[in-house]
């Protein structure tokens, strides 16, 4: 069964990416995590995302397009990336999610994929 691990990072997490002293540790942790998912043979896909200020939100209402700067939700933690994994059940997905580096600083949501 496929699940998506949604990685929510706080501002400090996002800042790590460009901080010369901390970026190696930050990216190293994600690299190790991704490799672990691949080694377990459960990795289906995923991507890291650029920080929220680079987001642009679009809505179509009554045939009119509204384009807005910034991410959709204005929350303390923002979507920083996602993984798609294929595991037997929610408990297995939660165990992998808990190992995600941002689980200990931000929050990680696990959602079963809609099968279409």
């Amino acid at each position, binding site marked *: *069964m496929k699940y998506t691990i949604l990685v929510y990072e706080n501002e400090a997490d996002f800042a790590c990416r460009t901080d010369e002293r901390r970026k190696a540790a930050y990216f190293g942790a994600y690299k190790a995590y991704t490799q672990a998912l691949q080694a377990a043979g459960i990795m289906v896909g995923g991507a890291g995302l650029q920080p929220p200020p680079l987001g642009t939100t679009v809505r179509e209402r009554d045939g009119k397009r509204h384009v807005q700067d910034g991410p959709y939700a204005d929350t303390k933690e923002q979507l920083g990336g996602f993984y798609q994994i294929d595991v*037997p*059940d*929610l*408990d*297995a997905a*939660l165990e992998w999610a808990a190992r995600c580096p941002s689980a200990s600083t931000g929050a990680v949501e696990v959602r*079963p994929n809609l099968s279409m």
Partner: protein
Amino acid sequence: MAAEAPDAHRAAELAARSSYGRLVAYLGRRWRDVAAAEDALGDAFVAALAKWPRDGVPDKPEAWLLAVARRRLVDAGRHASVEARSLAVIQAGVDEAHGAATSASVFPEERLALLFVCAHPAIDEGMRTPLMLQTVLGLDAARVAAAFVVSPITMSQRLVRVKTKIRDARIRFEVPGPSDLPARLGPVLEAIYAAYGRGWEDVAGADGRREDLADEAIWLGRLVTRLLPDEPEAGGLLALMLHCESRRAARRDSGGAYVPLNDQDVGRWSWPMIEEAERTLLVAARAGAPGRFQLEAAIQSAHALRGRTGRTDWEAIALLYEGLVRLAPTVGARVGHAAALAEVKGADAGLAALDDLPSAAIARYQPYWALRAHLLNRLGRPDQAAPDYARAIELSEDEVVRAFLTSKGRAAGSGR
């Protein structure tokens, strides 16, 4: 062995009561879908009620019900055009279920696994207990709703949502490993205790299904204690339920009237049950990890001591309640503490403790109003006691308890 129609009806009902949780647990685990398992079983029970009065009760009612239910599940699976792969899994489950049903009629460990599914951290905390009451112990949504003071429709909708999550998010059906167990056990014990409470409240014994619920809860308590012997709170809960259950017969006098604990004839207590409770609590206490249920059992154990010494050691009980309030400051614990204080230090001390409780918490809590009325009466303030008696009567579900409080209130009003 063609049974008479009423007997067949009764047999179907008996099977329903005793098998429901086991069969839901068994089918739900294999199909990973509690709602579908319940629907299929519901159909099986309807079929049994139609067939058994005519053809007689089968030798193994559970196996019969399981066979019908699994056919329904397979049909439903086909109807919903489940992928071929899933159908193969279902068929494998069917064969296994059939083997189990014909070789044995109980699946205790299945129920334990289902209990832990219901108490899964991915399930809304407020819904864990209602879910267990319904799926494991077979309470209908209306009764679960009554226990949680919400409308039956709201409760049904919430239960459906939770079961959908179990199925669609694919929550694992198994007893958690040692590292997760302590965090997962608490909600399981709470739910069992809530089920026991529902059975216990039926003082009149008017509702046979309720008394059965108390038995079911004790059964689950024994099961959890046996399977998780290193968890002292499981033993604490079992000891607590056994202590309460030991007094079931003494709660009514020969005329059927309600008898409060302090006036009960200790000769009508079940001493084998008290002894089992004491042994269970002793084993639990050896772990040196006191908890809410062990303390509550210890309080009941202190009450049971009156059976041997002829007096109640209220100071010990007040101390135990103090510890309980510190550990788990529930309304029940605080009202119990107030009652003990009233015995040790006087009715006004008890009343003062009651007055400290937040009004939102006690608005619909019957023991608070019954105790308050009793204490006001003892202090010679019957005029103030009267409205509290009325409130307690209004909040009492049980006819026998209502009658008891009515006579107390009347005696207070007449100045006796």
